[in-house]
């Protein structure tokens, strides 16, 4: 069985798993952990869009 993820799907899944680990390990309280995890997720996915648009601009 071979899995062929698209670039965007791979990036979003990466963001989900990394954010879970960052949220749990970098903060102490439950509320802070959820908040930091969501922050990391938004930053990861936001970074994907920013990088995508930058590459689009460079290509033109």
């Amino acid at each position, binding site marked *: 069985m071979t899995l062929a*993820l698209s*670039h965007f799907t791979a990036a979003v899944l990466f963001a989900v798993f*990394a954010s879970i680990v960052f949220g749990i390990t970098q903060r102490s309280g439950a509320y802070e952990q959820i908040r930091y995890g969501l922050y990391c997720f938004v930053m990861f996915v936001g970074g994907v869009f920013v990088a995508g648009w930058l590459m689009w601009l460079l290509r033109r």
Partner: protein
Amino acid sequence: MANSTTVKSPEQAQSAGMMAVVAPALGWLIPGAGHLIQRRWIRGLLLMAAIVIMFVLGILSQGRVYRLNGGDILDILGFVGDIGAGGLYIFTRAMDWGQGSIAHATADYGTKYIIVAGLLNFISVADAYHIAIGKKP
């Protein structure tokens, strides 16, 4: 002035010292187990799910699992990342999976997933240690 609630008996101190060794070691071997053994059930299960799923997705994407090597610096660093996954890495090597595939363009994503799963487990292990020594609740 010492607070009476913070004073540990010799047995408690010995148990905490033992946990500071066992929890990280177990957490390395089985991702999330370092938290589970300290009764951090939800954290442990979430860490286990995140790291194991990431590693398995990497293998299913035909990612490459690095072997111990003394060659290119990136290969050495790849091995360092991979070994962080502990038992997952050992099992994968034992099954001879993770050969990598140049036939699939997305296999490189898999290679990165496997490395990052190992690196995330290193962070998880450090967190389990901090809990064991009382630095984190």
